[in-house]
């Protein structure tokens, strides 16, 4: 392990590409940087590759997928060189993960209390009682009143929202240095959603825990994240600090995405702006810009390869035009 060299960066990934065994490219050249204590948001639609990026950090890529990268370091640990067993225990100890499909990540035959305490007993080397006390505290922090009943239940006895909250509590058990939250609040009611998000903020402030938040909900990302990555069809379209991104969006996709979401500010007689067409099938390779088929500014040049354009050190986008 080489902790000294890159100690200041939490995540340093260069040109991550994920391919299937038959050679289809699902994610192309994603570069991800994260500082300690930062809250980074990844926003994109379904099949844009945002979950896959997270899963590659967690070493949880589905079978048959293969990743390549120029550089892949997480908290100084080099995934390209390190022994897989070591990577696994490192992830278990340092990273809390809140999966998207919460039902599938809980064992149906094991009571919640045993699942939630397991990792803590293993890594923090604490007793089971200690672990359960901590679990009860966390579970009530995510808004569950009857903690005893919950801890003694099986996952199938709980609703989707409750299972999601169990996962959130579980991710926080080991006092992780980083949380990866993949659509953490998708199954929750808006009032609970707010509560959970605020809990993340508190954890972030009190323990300097970094949060990588993945969501399709631009409103949530805007409220919560300091820096935002906009991904589309497996590529980063734009990256900027929050205010910069919303005040000065450069990529046509980002511009459209901001306008397309009905918020309470919209005038009712105003027609919603729509993005024509559908999210592209990533299995079909596209030449040039991936957004060109839905882009209102499309010109011939869009069929050629696009380079990242830098506006300042925190803001870049992938488009031929300066709009």
């Amino acid at each position, binding site marked *: 392990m080489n902790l000294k060299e890159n100690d200041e960066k939490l995540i340093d990934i260069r040109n991550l590409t994920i391919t299937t065994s038959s050679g289809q490219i699902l994610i192309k050249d994603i570069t991800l940087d994260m500082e300690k204590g930062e809250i980074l948001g990844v926003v994109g*639609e*379904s099949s844009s590759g945002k979950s896959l990026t997270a899963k590659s950090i967690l070493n949880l890529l589905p079978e048959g997928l293969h990743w390549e990268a120029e550089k892949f370091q997480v908290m100084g640990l080099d995934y390209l060189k390190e022994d897989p067993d070591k990577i696994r225990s490192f992830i278990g100890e340092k990273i809390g993960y809140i999966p998207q499909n919460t039902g599938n990540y809980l064992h149906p035959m094991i009571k919640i209390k045993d699942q939630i305490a397991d990792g803590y007993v293993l890594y923090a080397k604490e007793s089971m009682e200690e672990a359960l006390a901590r679990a009860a505290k966390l579970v009530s922090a995510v808004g569950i009143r009857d903690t005893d009943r919950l801890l003694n239940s099986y996952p199938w006895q709980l609703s989707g*929202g409750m299972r999601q909250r169990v996962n959130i509590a579980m991710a926080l058990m080991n006092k992780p240095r980083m949380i990866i939250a993949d659509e953490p609040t998708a199954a929750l*009611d*808006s*009032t609970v*959603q*707010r509560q959970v998000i605020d809990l993340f903020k508190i954890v972030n402030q009190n323990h300097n825990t970094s949060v990588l938040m993945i969501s*399709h*909900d*631009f*409103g*949530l990302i*805007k*409220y919560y994240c300091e820096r935002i990555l906009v991904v589309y069809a497996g590529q980063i379209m734009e990256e900027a600090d929050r205010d910069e991104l919303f005040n000065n969006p450069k990529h046509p996709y980002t511009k*459209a*995405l901001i306008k*397309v*979401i*009905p*918020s*309470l500010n*919209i005038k*009712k007689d105003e*027609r*919603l*702006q*729509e*993005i*024509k067409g*559908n*999210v592209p099938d990533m299995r079909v390779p596209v030449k040039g810009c991936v957004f060109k088929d*839905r882009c209102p500014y499309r010109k011939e040049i869009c069929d050629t390869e696009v380079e990242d354009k830098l506006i300042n050190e925190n803001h870049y986008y992938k488009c031929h035009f300066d709009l």
Partner: protein
Amino acid sequence: MDKNSSQAILKGENIIRDFIVERKAIIGTPKKMFRALDDVSFEINEGETVGVVGESGSGKSTLGEILGGLLKYSSGKVFYKSKEIFKMNKEEFHNYRKNVQFIFQDPKGSMNPHFKIRDVVAEPLITLKICSSQEEIDSKVVDMIKKVGLEEDSIDKYPGELSGGQCQRVAIARALIVYPEVIICDEAVSALDVSVQAQILNLLIDLQAQFNISYIFISHDIGVVNYMSDRIIVMNRGEIVETGTAEEVFFYPKEEYTKKLVESSF
């Protein structure tokens, strides 16, 4: 407020719905009941959109299903054009069924995966015995598929071959093919990508202008409901807590619960 309350197409009066949570034995007397709807009254006029918001478990879907005749109520009354639905004769009930259609949240889940799109869209025509010949059915299906913005060749595909947005268009086509007066949209755009969501919302608005349809728009997304609705109903724990125009409810909420709901939306 109400344009003319006697003109309501669909009207519910003091609806109560209890679900049995626990029984003594498998077919024994109920031990524990859950009241999903508690004394709810509702009405919708021609060409109007009524938004129903609330958290999960607030009874908004139950209300939709009862108004659409998919679920029986424990007490109360539902009227379609001032006739009580469970007291109708067969013909009248048929007419009610034709004129009140549904669009559900999960478009793929609401379609038979072994049916081609052609058959999915044609189903209401067949079950409601509206068309006499196969040619008539076919031409209506093709016509409707085009109206909702799908390619003509998609009628020979299966639901699994279409994207979520396309499937939702199929669901809209299926609801529209009988030219209903009311469509109950239960979280109709919640499962869609945001870039596709706007297309579907615009389509629903266009179709409303064209055919003068009334929508009951059930959603947890306050932004979407505000945009779509003339009138809003806020539900909590099976009761209506607040009603009013979209502006009254979302910008000047009176009830604590509504305030909480609006504040927590991003």
